[in-house]
């Protein structure tokens, strides 16, 4: 009887489960299966069970790639959060019309192909780029500064590409904040900063968490930013998987790396959700992460 009730309650979810189960589930299962298969010399997949691909992931070089990617993704998430939070917060506090305009302006860059936006950075930072030309033109420097092909260039590009996700997610929760709570806090004599840290920040943690998810995961998979801005000198998971498929003709190994990456993300998200839960006293048990 109880089960029947539960089933009835859950019935509307069935189409979603089926839809995603088929469109994501099957490809995902396929990736997992592929990661246990071998390949022949030509790069064709051979149906023969092997653990070799997983053994190879643990090669010290590849471990380094994992760490490298984790480092970039974490750093990107924090940078976008630190820069993006005030943007989201200030935007949410703008008057209605300006607010809509600001949100539009934050979203608009998405309309320009990310490849071209990356080229935009090359135009800016390159040896004969705008910044160098400007600095030389004003006699501030006499030799072009080399700003390209560094880890910091990749970081800048990645953070630039993903920051709108962070801002929009945080904005969504700041915007819905109950103003009366803040006013109550002021009335009780709490200062601006105290109110912010005691009330605003904890209440917007779901937004930050959402933003973190939306930035952290894609930053692991982006590949052309590090190729174009980093001069191909660093290897990240996204590049590695990409080049294993498009150059290395090793789909099973690429699949194993994909599985490794998924597990890594899940672990990070799990740790992260624990942290969030501790900070919000478990109030956010059912958020997306």
């Amino acid at each position: 009887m109880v089960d029947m009730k539960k089933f009835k309650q859950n019935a509307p979810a069935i189409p979603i489960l089926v839809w995603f189960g088929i469109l994501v589930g099957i490809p995902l299962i396929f990736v997992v299966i592929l990661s246990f298969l071998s390949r022949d010399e030509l790069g064709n997949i051979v149906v023969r069970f092997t653990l070799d691909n997983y053994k190879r992931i643990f090669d010290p070089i590849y471990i380094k790639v994992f760490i490298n990617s984790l480092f970039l993704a974490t750093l990107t998430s924090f940078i976008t959060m630190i820069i993006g939070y005030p943007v989201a917060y200030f935007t949410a506090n703008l008057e209605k019309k300006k607010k809509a305009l600001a949100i539009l302006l934050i979203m608009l860059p998405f309309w320009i192909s990310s490849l071209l936006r990356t080229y935009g950075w090359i135009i800016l930072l390159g040896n004969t780029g705008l910044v160098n030309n400007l600095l030389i033109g004003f006699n501030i420097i006499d030799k072009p500064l080399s700003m390209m092909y560094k880890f910091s260039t990749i970081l800048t590009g990645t953070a630039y590409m993903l920051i709108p996700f962070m801002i929009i997610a945080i904005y969504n929760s700041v915007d819905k904040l109950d103003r009366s709570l803040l006013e109550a806090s002021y009335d009780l004599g709490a200062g601006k900063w105290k109110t912010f840290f005691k009330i605003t920040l904890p209440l917007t943690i779901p937004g930050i968490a959402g933003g973190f998810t939306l930035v952290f995961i894609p930053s692991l998979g982006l590949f052309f930013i590090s190729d174009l801005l980093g001069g191909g000198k660093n290897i990240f998971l996204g590049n590695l998987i990409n080049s294993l498929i498009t150059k290395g003709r090793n789909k099973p190994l690429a699949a194993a790396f994909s599985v490794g990456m998924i597990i890594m993300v899940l672990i990070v998200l799990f740790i992260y959700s624990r942290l969030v839960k501790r900070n919000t006293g478990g109030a956010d048990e059912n958020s997306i992460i």
Partner: protein
Amino acid sequence: MKTQSYKLRTFYLSLFFVILYVPILSVVLYSFNKNPSTAQWTGFTLDWYRELFSDRIILESFKVSMIVAILTSIFSAILGTASAIIAIYVTKKMEKAINGLMLLPLLVPEVALGVSLLLFFSSMRLPFGYMTLVLSHSLFCVPYVYIMVQLRLKEIDNSIIEAAKDLGAARWQIIKTIILPLVFPSIITSSLLSLAMSLDDVVISTYMSGPTSTTLPVHVFSMMRVGVTPKVNALCTLILLGTFFIIGISEVFSKKNSKKEEEEVD
């Protein structure tokens, strides 16, 4: 004191927007560059715009991209919002399951997803074209709609819904009169986001497009091999201008509307 903090806020926001738009403005600037590569500025020209309009491949692929993006964003908005709303009615366990499921497409690396979808769809004998593009794009767009709408839903006071229930409102009525209006802004922002993400996708589209449905990013990406010409910059400049134009128009309309509303209230 208050004005000082206001100034500081304005300054911060302005600075942020400047940095956000400087790379884009450089793209715009270089659409007027005589030199076909980004390596140097060699003089002003409008040639790329002329070439753009005679390049039927770019225009065609842009059309394909727009169709795919619009269908994807409508489809994702419906599916994502429906999922988010369903998720508040089901049991906690089921909600968690849906949450997890929504995260999956974002977790799988794009290339891996692209290749496995290629094999999956071709084994189903699906024709590669608009359908496969929209299906695959909606995979990574629905989660964004879902997350955004859910974030908004979380903020809705449960007591409102409970009160409505006590008053005997049916589920559909609650959804229609309370939930949908509340999450509407999120639906709009997230479908705009879906539109943009679909317009920007390269990797999955490479595997999902058929011989007659090359999307703009796939075309641009394949141009990289021989150098992306400022023609593409020119197209992006026009897209940007077009978007500003649309925003301008909607701004005018919303002004009219808000005036009307004010009059009605009076």
